[in-house]
């Protein structure tokens, strides 16, 4: 420190901040601090390379409020953590649902019947939120209370002070203290064992920022504003250009969509004559497991049958004969009934299990129209007939399978029933795609069993006879279906 400044607290170039006394060991520092406090100094501070034991009472430092700040933040974090999870995932307390209220619906998936919001599942995240918030509060709170960062400090201008972070100990008495007196304070410090004493002076000559810095900072701030302004401008405007796709993900793939023109060209012509992207299988190729060469099993047609005329597949009539009455009776005379098998194929073993299976499948697929007892009185049929009576619909009544045209084994052999189920007949649709082959044969077996029980249509019979009819029914079919028949359907 310059000698001429020794006796003036302030001159035009610098201002005295305080006196800094150096000590060589922590004990002398603590003693000096203690004596300074007893001498009435309050604006004091000590500097040491590590926290010195006992210096807090010696300097009269009050306990910091930092722990209470952290506690407050931590308690708040409990509510923030739980509230965040309740808002995003739960929100199903009582009638309140996050499905409608917030912007994003969240993960309202029912998993194993667990509630949307339950404390145990939300403890881990809540805990982490508490710890994170408290750690931030501790870290930033500590620096804030210490008034750091302070990147310019007159203390750093004292060359001896550099050892405050190494191995020396310092006591500063500030000029702002009421007791401070340049001469007597220095004497006291010497008395308390100071090894050396320095003045700490704030340099007043370079207090101002460099003149270019303001302009530079202003320009920097304006430049930084440009990108967000550009983004907000773009967001607020319409544009004909496609939106900027920063990350394409899998939005554009090197593939052709179905039902489009094939892009594959050769010699300026489409490679495929039909120009289609979708390619049919090569003629004669058979999909794995679908070689249905056994006509008896898969079509119900005798394997030794040789068609005399080109076989007209009955599929042609499917769903096109709306309004035609009794397709079977008015079937084209070309149909050769003798082509159908009259026995079950050898792969199908007819036993109770098969009939039971057929019953289950029949009740699922057939009973809706044909009725559980195959009387042609299924609920769909009843409803459609009622609608047709008012002229609101066209409907061909479902057949009673006890009808002679159906039950007659000569006119309607097993193979033909199978074929009917597979491909449909009249207004009845094909079920070949829904019901596996073996199940269709099971239904055939069940239909034959139903026909054998001889259930008659109940339209003309009395209640007593109806009861007998039910008893004669060997199957599990409830008699109620027959009574339903008499009820008018709305």
């Amino acid at each position: 420190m310059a000698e001429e400044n020794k006796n003036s607290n302030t001159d035009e170039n610098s201002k005295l901040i305080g006196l800094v006394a150096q000590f060589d060991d922590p004990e002398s520092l603590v003693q000096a601090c203690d004596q300074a406090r007893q001498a009435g100094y309050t604006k004091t501070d000590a500097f040491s390379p590590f926290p010195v034991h006992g210096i807090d009472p010696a300097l009269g430092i009050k306990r910091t409020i930092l722990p209470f700040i952290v506690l407050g933040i931590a308690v708040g974090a409990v509510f923030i953590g739980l509230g965040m999870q309740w808002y995003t995932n739960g929100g199903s307390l009582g009638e309140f649902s996050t499905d409608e209220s917030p912007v994003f619906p969240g993960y309202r998936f029912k998993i194993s019947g667990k509630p949307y919001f339950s404390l145990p599942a939300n403890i881990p995240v809540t805990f982490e939120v508490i710890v994170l918030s408290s750690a931030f509060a501790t870290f930033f709170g500590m620096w804030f209370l210490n008034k750091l960062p302070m990147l310019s400090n007159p203390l750093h201008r004292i060359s001896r002070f550099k050892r405050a972070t190494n191995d020396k100990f310092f006591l500063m008495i500030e000029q702002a203290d009421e007791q401070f007196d340049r001469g007597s304070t220095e004497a006291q410090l010497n008395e308390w064992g100071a090894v050396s004493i320095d003045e700490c002076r704030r340099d007043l000559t370079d207090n101002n920022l460099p003149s270019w810095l303001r302009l530079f900072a202003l320009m920097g701030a304006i430049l930084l504003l440009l990108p967000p302004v550009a983004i907000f401008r773009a967001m607020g405007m319409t544009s004909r250009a496609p939106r900027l796709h920063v990350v394409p993900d899998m939005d554009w793939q090197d593939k052709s969509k179905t039902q489009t023109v094939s892009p594959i060209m050769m010699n300026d012509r489409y490679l495929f004559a039909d120009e289609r992207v979708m390619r049919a299988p090569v003629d004669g190729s058979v999909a794995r497991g679908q070689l249905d060469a056994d006509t008896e099993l898969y079509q119900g047609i005798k394997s030794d049958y040789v068609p005399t005329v080109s076989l007209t597949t009955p599929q042609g009539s499917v769903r096109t004969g709306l309004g035609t009455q009794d397709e079977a009776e008015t079937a084209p005379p070309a149909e050769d009934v003798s082509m159908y098998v009259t026995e079950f194929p050898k792969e199908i073993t007819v036993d109770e299990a098969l009939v039971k299976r057929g019953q289950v499948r029949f009740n699922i697929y057939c009973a809706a129209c044909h009725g559980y007892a195959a009387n042609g009185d299924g609920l769909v049929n009843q409803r459609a007939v009622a609608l047709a009576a008012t002229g609101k619909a066209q409907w061909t009544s479902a057949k009673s399978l006890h009808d002679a045209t159906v039950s007659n084994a000569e006119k309607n052999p097993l193979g033909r029933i199978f074929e009917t189920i597979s491909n449909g007949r009249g207004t009845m649709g094909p079920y070949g795609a829904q019901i596996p082959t073996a199940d269709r044969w099971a239904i055939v077996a069940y239909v034959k069993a139903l026909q054998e029980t001889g259930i008659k249509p109940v339209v003309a019979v009395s209640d007593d006879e109806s009861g007998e009819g039910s008893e004669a029914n060997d199957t599990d079919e409830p008699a109620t279906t027959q009574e339903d028949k008499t009820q008018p359907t709305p």
Partner: protein
Amino acid sequence: MATVNPILDNTYDDAGERSPLILGGLDYAGVTDEVCGIWEADKPPKIWFVVLGAAISLLMVLGGCVGHLLMDGVGVWGNNNPAYWGWPIVNFVFWVGIGHAGTLISAILFLFRQNWRTSINRAAEAMTIFAVVCAGLFPGVHIGRVWVFYWLFPIPTEHLAMWPNFRSPLLWDVFAVSTYATVSILFWYMGMVPDIATFRDRCTSKIGKFVYGLLSLGWTGSARAWHRYEIAYTILAALATPLVLSVHTIVSFDFAVSQVPGWHTTIFPPYFVAGAIFSGFAMVVTLLVPVRKLYGLENLITIRHLENMNKIIMATGMMVGTAYGIEFFIAWYSGVPYESYAFYNRAFGNYWWAYWIMVSCNVLIPQVFWIKWCRTTPWFMVIICVFVNIGMWFERFVITITSLCRDFVPSSWAYFHPTWVDIMMLIGSFGLFFTLFTLFCRYLPVIAMAEVKGVMPRPKDH
């Protein structure tokens, strides 16, 4: 400057006297000179360049692999039905576990007033952060589309239009690991500020003065600042202690909350935490033995420090061994055939080799630390600790892969095959770790000078 005394043996326990934490008769300035000498040297030792060069080469391998992964998708890994969690999660748990020793040393030993921690806590905390960086890399790139990583956090985005599922342990993991990384960095940095101030005050180069001046935030060592600093440090330690336990607990929930046999056990949280500390201490020893030798820090990181760590390694190793045994007992005692099979399969199935590598490295080999020579001979303990880390990697491998490859549906059973990307990413992650650690050794205070000085015997003790 300190006079280098012949190295005392401070590993003897004398009930009447505390063993010195620091040897060589160092005073305050001596500690500063020793630690700052590393960074003030004109040139680091040649071996430093060799290590850094090797580490950066591996880091470039890692970068190449990550680039390849991002361009081609996660299919470049061996993860496939049924082992959808392959090496990435093994590496993740391995690295995050290593990090735990640093927090244990800095926080838990601080709360227990274990003064010997002061010489090793800085390097251990740095190791924690670098290990967590390596750990975070694997789930980070595992999400496939890393450019929408923010979907992991409850940030409203119109693109996703959905919140994360807070009932999933994987999301707990996101919160736990990111909190852990953040708090570890805060703790590490806060502890380092007084030492960076020392660097600032000794620095002669302009760039150094600027950078260290900025990083030290204007720290002067004021008693009022120290008062708040110490309280803040204690609070952070008290926060980090349950945090470190929660992190590996939640990592273990990733497994334990699922239903896969071999994963669905309540022993996982304590077992994982013990294993994490075990592997972390092994890594600290592996790193610090060469560092103290290279930089001549034998007076600060004494044999007694290493011995204490080896004792912890042995203790946690036996905890892990007990857990292995208990798992088998529970598998038998539960009477659940799937559970029994899962553990029979671990030891005697087609991954028997991995299981027995794990048991040998984690349970059998650390038993040599019963012998004093083994736990006080630096070169030997490094070998043991490398084995421990191999074993701990295999522990995560065994848990993840054997359980997934033998799940409930025998038709999907398979044998896991890593691809070259899996292998190079594991090796490359060591490159990332050692690059960061080597740079840390050169440019930041390796030893917490202020803390060491705080526990040194006073020169004029009354």
